[in-house]
């Protein structure tokens, strides 16, 4: 591999790589605002100023390709001075309202100012201000904080495929806004907030809910569709606050869709059944685990039982269910359900040109690997034992007797005989197989709320009941 020298260190790079990325290999971080590895290079913030031996002018590392034998300094006086001056220019019109800014603590402008800016402000003129229009339900804009990096414009045009963010006016009056002041159209709008290097575009869903440095982060996988994008769940206490995409070049690059981003909200839904419940007349009644498990067993006793597993379960859960049923309901058919109209992986496909897949559950391909057949219909007079992770759409089971295990909202289980509440994707570890056949790990971020239990515990209780043993 060719090598160049950055700050005295020999750095290997792939041909075509720019200096920002090459420096990263050596652990040297060159500050950037407009540069994003997933977007075109525009070299307009000028923050990544470096000195290249043999070139008199300061160069921007983002637009300079590393070359064999190139000698680069990120710490020369000229480079440091250039970066400091860019920081000064960027801050003269920035409101410096960090104490009330939701981005504070999670802000490239703050970080780079801390690392490369000067300590004093020489600007005494009036600051530039803008009026903001509403940008729709996802993003809140504050143009006064904008540093004109144009990442959002390029994200819209190059990734989301919608030229909805534009630069209006010119010079110091340049305003970054939506075309004609319309609300954002893309269903990938949350990424605008992710790539914004300052507090100009923030997520309406998250702002003022939690300070960015107060959350814990868990690296896991989105369960929104069979793409299975890599995500970070940000949580504190037992509450998930937001989902951020995690870079994974093999799956989602740097992005996620809004559906996946906001999917986690159902785990905190006030209608989620988080205590075991059984039917009493037309309503469901909360019960202790032992009572509910006994009722469930009694309800299924003597019936022709068919097993339905949601394709939103993990491989481990599905295997446990298979083993459980072999033991408890020998010969009972097991089938999977998930997205209406998407029965097998052949029905699954790209739902758009970016990330989304047609299968709205994460583990359809894993279910097939375990040999579980798609659900078509219950046979006559059969009762159903339904296992569900939280996203799979329960098919119409008519007037059959149904016992539900897993995550259900109250309306979804309105006709069930019993519900044994389980853990959602954020509350368990496990493995899923995405549409490309790639195994990925779900990691637990929070604990199952209320009385909900992990699948292993529920199955154990059910099987003990089946053999006449008492339950905890």
């Amino acid at each position, binding site marked *: 591999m060719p090598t160049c020298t950055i700050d005295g260190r020999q750095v290997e790079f792939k041909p075509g790589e720019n200096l920002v990325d090459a420096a990263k290999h050596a652990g040297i971080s060159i500050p950037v605002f407009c540069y994003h590895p997933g977007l075109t290079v525009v070299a307009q913030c*000028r923050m990544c100023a470096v000195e290249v031996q043999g070139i008199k002018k300061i160069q921007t590392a983002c637009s300079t390709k590393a070359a064999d034998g190139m000698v680069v300094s990120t710490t020369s006086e000229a480079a440091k001075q250039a970066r400091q001056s860019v920081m000064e*220019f960027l801050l003269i019109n920035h409101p410096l309202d960090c104490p009330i800014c939701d981005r504070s603590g999670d802000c490239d402008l703050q970080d780079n100012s801390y690392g490369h800016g000067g300590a004093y402000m020489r600007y005494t003129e*009036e600051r530039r201000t803008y009026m903001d229009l509403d940008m729709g339900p996802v993003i809140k804009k504050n143009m006064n904080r904008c540093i*004109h990096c144009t990442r959002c414009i390029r994200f819209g045009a190059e990734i989301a495929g919608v030229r909805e963010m534009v630069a209006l006016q010119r010079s110091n009056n*340049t305003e970054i806004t939506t075309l004609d002041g319309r609300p954002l159209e893309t269903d990938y709008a949350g990424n605008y907030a992710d790539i914004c290097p300052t507090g100009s575009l923030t997520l309406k869903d998250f702002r003022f809910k939690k300070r960015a440095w107060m959350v814990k982060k868990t690296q896991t996988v989105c369960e929104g569709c069979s793409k299975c994008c890599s995500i970070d769940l940000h949580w504190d206490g037992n509450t998930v606050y937001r989902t951020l995409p995690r870079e994974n070049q093999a799956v989602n690059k740097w992005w996620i869709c809004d559906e996946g981003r906001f999917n986690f909200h159902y785990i905190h839904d006030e209608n989620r059944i988080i205590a075991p419940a059984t039917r009493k007349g037309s309503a469901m009644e909360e019960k202790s685990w032992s009572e509910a498990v006994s009722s469930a067993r009694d309800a299924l006793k003597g019936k022709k039982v068919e097993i339905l597993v949601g394709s939103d379960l993990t491989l481990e859960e599905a295997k446990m269910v298979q083993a459980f049923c072999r033991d408890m309901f020998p010969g009972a058919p097991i089938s999977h359900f998930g997205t209406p109209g998407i029965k097998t992986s052949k029905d699954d496909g790209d739902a758009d040109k970016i990330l989304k897949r047609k299968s709205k559950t994460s583990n359809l391909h894993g279910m097939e690997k375990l040999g579980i057949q798609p659900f078509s219909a219950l046979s006559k007079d059969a009762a159903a034992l339904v296992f569900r992770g939280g996203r799979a759409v329960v098919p119409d089971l008519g007037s059959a007797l149904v016992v539900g295990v897993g995550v259900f909202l109250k309306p979804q289980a309105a006709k069930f005989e019993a519900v044994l509440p389980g853990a959602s994707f954020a509350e368990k570890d496990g493995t899923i197989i995405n549409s490309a056949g790639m195994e990925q790990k779900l990691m637990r971020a929070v604990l199952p709320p209320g009385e909900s239990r992990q699948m292993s515990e529920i199955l154990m209780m059910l099987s003990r009941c089946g053999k006449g043993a008492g339950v905890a």
Partner: protein
Amino acid sequence: MSNAVASGETLYIQHFGNEEARSLEYYLKQMKGYTALKKAFGMKVEAIVEEMKASNLRGRGGAGFPTGTKWGFIPKESPKPKYLVCNADESEPGTFKDRDIMRYTPHLLIEGMVIGGYTIGAHIGYIYIRGEYTREAKLLQAAIDEAYAKGYLGKNIQGSGFTFDLTVHRGAGAYICGEETGLLNSLEGKRGEPRVKPPFPAQAGAFGGPTIVNNVETLAAVPHIINRGGKWFSSLGAVEKSGGTRLFCVSGHVKKPGLYELPSGGVTLRQLIYDYCGGILGDKKLKAVIPGGSSAPVLTPDEIDVVLDIEPLMKIGSMLGSAGIMVVSEDYCLVRLIWRITKFYDHESCGQCTPCREGCRWMKDILWRIENGNGRETDLPLLLDIANNINGKTLCALGDAAAGPVSSFVRKFKADFEAHIRGKRCPHAP
């Protein structure tokens, strides 16, 4: 406008003011029109490039890059179409030479473009003309229509088998569209913002194809060079590296402002102001000269013995630029002048890159405070520092164009600024 014809051979100026000159008939009869084109069709492309190199013609738009060398950059084989673009944006304040070429000798430009297209292998040409030149755009279009009708443009030009289509594209009024990549973006229908270089236009220019962008005056010189030879053209210049004559646009406080055609490097600034332009208006004292359009650093009266050419001006820290010479007498406030120039650059900054977008406004605001008696002693080092932080650190040359004048005014006319700051008013104000 009083056009003075200099001694020696002139290529354009004898036709300026003559409205008949713009017709094809006049061009064919009186100016040996389209004979260079016929000659070029009989030449090898390499021979034309050699002739251009021998002519020492240097770009007349401001950068002064040798035209023959530029044409040589175009790759022979290209999967994408090649383009020849004429930069007729002429947006540099103080410059008005291209306007008269388009007004009075449009066929000279058209012929130059066909030869240029033939040489670099482009079949499509654009004249990107500034939006304010409505009359010139119409005149150009009329000349192009005439040329199409008589077979000097279009398919199989004069039986040569060479096809060249020429389109006039009007700008919408932005200084930055005179910067060649800003121009190409605007031509493509995008925002007029300069592009990151490399790639340079010769590699990937208009619509991604290899593109040459030349100034009007540059292209209008091409027929002369082909007709009479690169050596002859080179000998018109008074210095070795700069061939041909040059159009100087003189404005400001001189007795005879206007266009002057003089040998490249043939006169000093003093000769131009005092001998050709008749000296300063009202026989006042000279205060300052901007030698190359408003982006050129200012010169003091002590510096005007400099030869008007690219290298001598560069040596004393200024530039010839587009040869728009602005002369300022002692009656005018220089702080107000540099404020007005900076206001222009602030207004015309495209807003892409940080130092130019933020710095130009900041400098303008400080200069306005000083001019209005609200300046502070610390403003002068601050102005120099801001200018230094812009200079050489921006995406395109507009930042340099804004920073150079400010730092040169502050350094060379410090006393004027201090008089404003200490007197808390503009000494020139009533």
